[in-house]
Every structure is written in structure tokens, then in C-alpha cells.
């Protein structure tokens, strides 16, 4: 039976220490947090064997609220902290929580290289198209023409497509959801955690306060409604033309493939060196 909200609160939240949270009413971050917890609960992962690492920004607060091994790090570095943990303790389930600014601007280099290396990590990227916490400046995922505090007349740069970037960078598993599709999101996160290899779940989320308001997208309800209206499954997307896909959000699994995994290949090198009588200290 699926875990209830009250059970989640008691089992996984630092409800007596870290609340109230800092997120605005209607923020998508809470939906992502709920989906993550249902996924972890669905997999019956012991809390002591889960590590959450986050960067800076609204999403960076998430691990603070959760009762796992948690690390709130510096801007853009969630994945590098996660890499260190995973290499030192490969048995742990390491999940990096990032925002679009974290993962594709200041930490963009770490992101593509973690994917290329195909380290056995899970990366959840909440993409709300804006730097929300610092007041609504454009980020690398702000769409062309959109308004932000630093693009009052419309943004003149093109946006990254995070999931597609992960696919071309070599990640083993890549999926996308929106915060409207909470059930799907929990399922995709479950798959991502289970997958051996670098797994990315991009979640399109609403920052109605900083992004929605400036672009006449309405409040949280209207933005979620638009995700409902504009989402197309990966399967359906294959039958649509490029023009028809304009403005749509492709959701589902974009890549699920077997590639060499960094930690496993490293272990093989160690074994080979050992067989040759090399000095393998640790």
C-alpha cells in the first residue's frame, strides 16, 4: 500500500526541527520532494543508506527538510560532492538535488562530465526556468524571448534543454516529468534510483512568483494546468513533427541504456592491477 502523507511526514521529514520551509505557497519544490519520498519509500531504501546532496537556491533547501544523510553544499557543486561520496562509499544511494541554475550554469561542467563518466548516481534537476531565490534573473533554461529581471525586453539567448543535454553527454538513464505529473515523477525517480549508471530526472516546475508573473503565465494553478495541457509522452512525440512539438514538454523516459559505469570499470582496473601483483592499498 502506498504511504500516506501523514506517514511521510513522520517517517521522512525533520518535521519537528526544520519547518516551516522557505518555499513560496504553490511552489513545485514540495511536489518534487513528495515524489522523491514516495519513490524512496517504494524502493524500501533504508534511510541510513540514502545520501542527498544539494547545491544553492530554492531547491538546495530540500535535503535540509529530510531525515537522511544530507549535505547542503555550494552553488553548482552538488554533483561533485555526490561523486566524492559515491567513490568513497559505492554502496550508498546517492541522490543530487539541483536547480536549473545549479546544474546547467555554474555547475554545468560537472553535469556533463558526471553524465559522460556514467557514475552510478541519481540527479534530480528541478527546472523552473529562472534564478528564483535571488530575484528572477535569467538562467540557462530561460526560454528565448522570456522576461526576467535581467531581460526586461525579452531574453536574447537560447535555452539549454537539460534532459537532451544529459542524453548527448552519455547518461545511462534520462527522464523528464513536470510537477503536474506527480505520479509519473515518483515512478521515474524510482527507475532512476534503481538504474545502475548516471540517471537524470528533469522536472519542469513552476516559479510563478519570479517567472510566471513576469511572463503572464498566471499563478501556480494556471502553470500546472499548462503543464497538463502541453505535455506529450515520449511515444507520442515520435509521431509529431518538429512544428507540432513546438512549445510542448516531452515527458517519460528519453534514454535507458547500458553503458560502462565508472565505479565498476574502476573496480576492474583495480582487480587487474592486483592480479599483476601491483600494490593495491585501499
Amino acid at each position: 500500500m502506498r504511504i500516506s502523507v501523514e506517514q511521510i511526514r513522520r517517517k521522512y521529514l525533520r518535521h519537528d526541527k526544520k519547518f516551516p520551509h522557505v518555499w513560496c505557497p504553490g511552489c513545485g519544490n514540495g511536489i518534487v520532494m513528495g515524489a522523491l519520498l514516495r519513490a524512496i519509500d517504494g524502493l524500501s531504501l533504508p534511510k541510513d543508506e540514502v545520501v542527498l546532496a544539494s547545491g544553492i537556491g530554492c531547491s538546495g533547501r530540500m535535503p535540509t527538510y529530510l531525515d537522511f544523510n544530507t549535505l547542503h553544499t555550494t552553488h553548482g557543486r552538488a554533483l561533485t560532492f555526490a561523486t566524492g561520496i559515491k567513490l568513497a562509499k559505492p554502496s550508498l544511494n546517492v541522490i543530487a538535488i539541483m536547480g536549473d541554475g545549479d546544474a546547467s550554469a555554474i555547475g554545468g561542467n560537472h553535469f556533463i562530465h558526471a553524465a559522460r563518466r556514467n557514475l552510478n548516481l541519481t540527479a534530480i534537476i528541478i527546472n523552473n526556468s529562472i534564478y528564483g531565490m535571488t530575484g528572477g534573473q535569467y538562467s540557462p533554461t530561460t526560454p528565448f524571448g522570456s522576461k526576467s529581471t535581467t531581460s526586461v525586453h525579452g531574453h536574447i539567448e537560447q535555452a539549454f534543454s537539460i534532459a537532451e543535454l544529459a542524453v548527448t553527454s552519455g547518461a545511462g538513464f534520462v527522464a523528464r516529468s513536470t510537477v503536474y505529473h506527480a505520479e509519473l515523477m515518483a515512478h521515474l525517480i524510482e527507475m532512476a534510483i534503481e538504474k545502475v549508471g548516471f540517471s537524470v530526472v528533469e522536472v519542469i516546475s513552476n516559479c510563478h512568483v519570479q517567472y510566471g508573473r513576469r511572463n503572464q503565465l498566471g499563478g501556480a494553478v494556471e502553470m500546472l494546468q499548462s503543464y497538463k495541457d502541453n505535455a506529450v509522452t515520449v511515444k507520442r512525440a515520435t509521431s509529431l513533427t518538429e512544428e507540432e512539438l513546438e512549445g510542448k514538454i516531452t515527458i517519460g523516459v528519453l534514454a535507458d541504456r547500458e553503458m560502462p559505469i565508472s565505479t565498476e570499470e574502476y573496480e576492474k582496473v583495480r582487480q587487474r592491477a592486483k592480479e599483476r601483483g601491483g600494490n593495491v592499498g585501499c
Partner: protein
Amino acid sequence: MTRELLTGNGAAALGAKLAGIEYLPAFPITPQTEVIETLSKWIEEGSMDCKMVTMESEHSMVTAAGAAAATGVRTFTATSSQGLLYAAEMLHTVTGWRVPFVLVNVSRGLASPITLEPDHNDIMALRDAGFVQIHCSTCQEVLDSMILAYRLSEDAGVRLPVIVNYDGFYLSFTREPVEVPNQEYVDRFLPPFPTNQPRFSADHPMSQGVAVLGGSAYSYFKYQTHLALLNAGLIYKQITNEFQILFSRSYDPVELYKLKDAEYAFLMIGSFSCKGKEAVDQLRAAGWKIGLVRPRLTRPFPMDELRKSLAPLKGVAVIDQNLSLGMGGVLHQETAAALYPLITRPILAAFVGGLGGRDISAEEFYSMAETIREAVKTGETPPQRLLYTEKENTDMQQLQRIAGTHTTSP
């Protein structure tokens, strides 16, 4: 001249506008963001002719600033805390390029633990980078320092970037009445970016950042940069004199407050010195002969001014809002180093306070004054002290109990 109510961030932005900046590489970070947001608004409105790009990190932002300045363009950028440290590699690099530009740093404590609130660990960590460092205590000073900073930075005898530093929250978001100088007067004080100095140009190609192995050329250029920074101290005095004539506001390298007949003094930088001055007034009303010494420049370090002003005193309480872990407060170390050659010098008491935005109360100023008077009486230098109350300690232990961790008394 007009009077406006401006935040520290607003004053910095207006200073940049009056200075006629032409290029602004930017990256948001609390509590600096309002500076770039304000400038962005003016650029979008068309009231400023400046090019602005939001970069992907502070590292690339400072790189772009240094490179733009090398082409002979008046450049401005701003950051804070983690951003300043993330750019550290480039901060050291661009001073070696000897390029003039201005960087605002809105001081904020460093992770970890993570904080958004102010102290001076960020700026002190960059004290060896080769930037001139100007520390402000009011919003007026922020605006004026911006204009002074460009003039100083672009002087042929300096040609180094300048950091204008002020405290996050306490100054960045506090509105104060600020006298805004007329553009005409600013232009008179700050001529256009000099065209007769080395810079990238198509008809006179030159190289920057050349590798020099062997040590000889490296030593020469590093020491040249050091000498230029020392020279900036002399130039600073000349240009502040000029500034005073034009704008009737004086900005000595070290501000001396009620020091004339003083026997004791507080020594500190930044906006908390306003609290220090208030404490001085109260203590004087109670009969104390006490004043306050506030270095505005920390790089170049105002050795001569400090020796001259501190030598006649009996005791000085140095208040550091930074902590060089494993040693103590940076201002205390550097003040002690400045005073060491003197035969008669005051006793120094070292205090560390105001870390991560913690307040320094009036009672704590009185207690520090008491400590230094006692030290003068006994002739014994007191041990370094963290400003921390009994109640704070009890509260922390309570929090640690909730967190389920062991408590240890400091």
C-alpha cells in the same frame, strides 16, 4: 546636488552609473543582486549606455571584467561571499594584468555553515590578491567610494582593480539619505577612461598573461604589482583631497573619531563602526577618554596612518568581524605588525565578533573598553576573545540537544 534615500546597493549602482560604466558582466548572489538588478533596469530603460551580460558564474564574470578592462573600457562588476571566493583564481590573475576596473563586494560570511548574513571573512580571504580594498560604513560612502575607486584604479601610477566593500544587510539593504553629486562635477573629477595607457588595440597588438619561467621575470612583475599597490596609498590621498574640494566630503585612509585626547580606542572596519561610534559617545558621556579608529583602506594597509594615530594611545581594542582560523582576527595581526617597530606602543586586545551577521551590542562595546582599560592597568595583554553571551551558549546547547548531538563547552 540632490538628496535621495538609497540602500547601499542602490548607492553602489548609482555610483557606477555616475562613473559612466560601459560594460557590466554579472552573476546574481545574495545580498549583492540588487546592484546588478538596479543597473539592469536603467540599461533596459535606456537611461544608461552600458552593455550587460549575465555570465554562468563569478569566475567567468571576473574573467570577462578583466579582459574588457584590458581593451580600454570602463568596467564594473559586483559579487559577494561565495562568489568572490569562486572568482579567486581570476582575482589574482587580473591584478597581474594591471587592468583598472571596480568590483563591489557585499560582505557575507562564508560556508560552511551556510549563511546569508555579513562578516568579513570573504574580503579578508582575498587580501593578498592585489586589489585595492576600500571599506565603507555608510551608503553615502558607498556612492562616493565608487567614484573615487575608478579615479584611483585608472591612475597611471596604479592601474590596478579596486574592490569597494560594504556589509550585506546592514548596509546593502538599509536606506540612508545620500547626497547625489551632479554628473558635471563627477565628470570633472573622473575624466574618461585614459586612452594613453597600454591596452588591446588593433593597430598596437600586445600580449597579456604571458608565461615567464625561471622566476626572475616573475619576481619582477609580482613586486611591481606590490609597489603599484603601495603607491595607490599615496595617490589615494591626493585624489581624496581633490574630492573634498569638489564635494566637501573627506575620506582619509583611516578615519579617526574623537581621538584627539583619547587614551583608548576601538579599531574596526565597515558599517559596525557606526555602532562603535555610538558606544564611544556613551562612554565619553561617562567620562572615558576613548575614540574610534576605522581604516577605510585595508589594501594597501595604512601603516603610517595607523602608527601615527595609535602610538599615543594606552590601549586599543581591535574588533575583527573575521576569523583567520588557527590564528585569530586579521586586523589584529596586521595592526600588531604595524605597531611592532615602535618603541612605545599601546596594548592591543583582540576581539572577534559579529560573525555571520551576529550583532555587537552596546554592552559588549562597554565590556571591551573595560577589558582594555584593565589590561593597561596590569600591563598584561588579554587573551583573544569571541564576543558570545552566556545566553547564546545555553541556546546553542539546547539546539544541539534537539539535534541529538553531543555538547561540548567552548
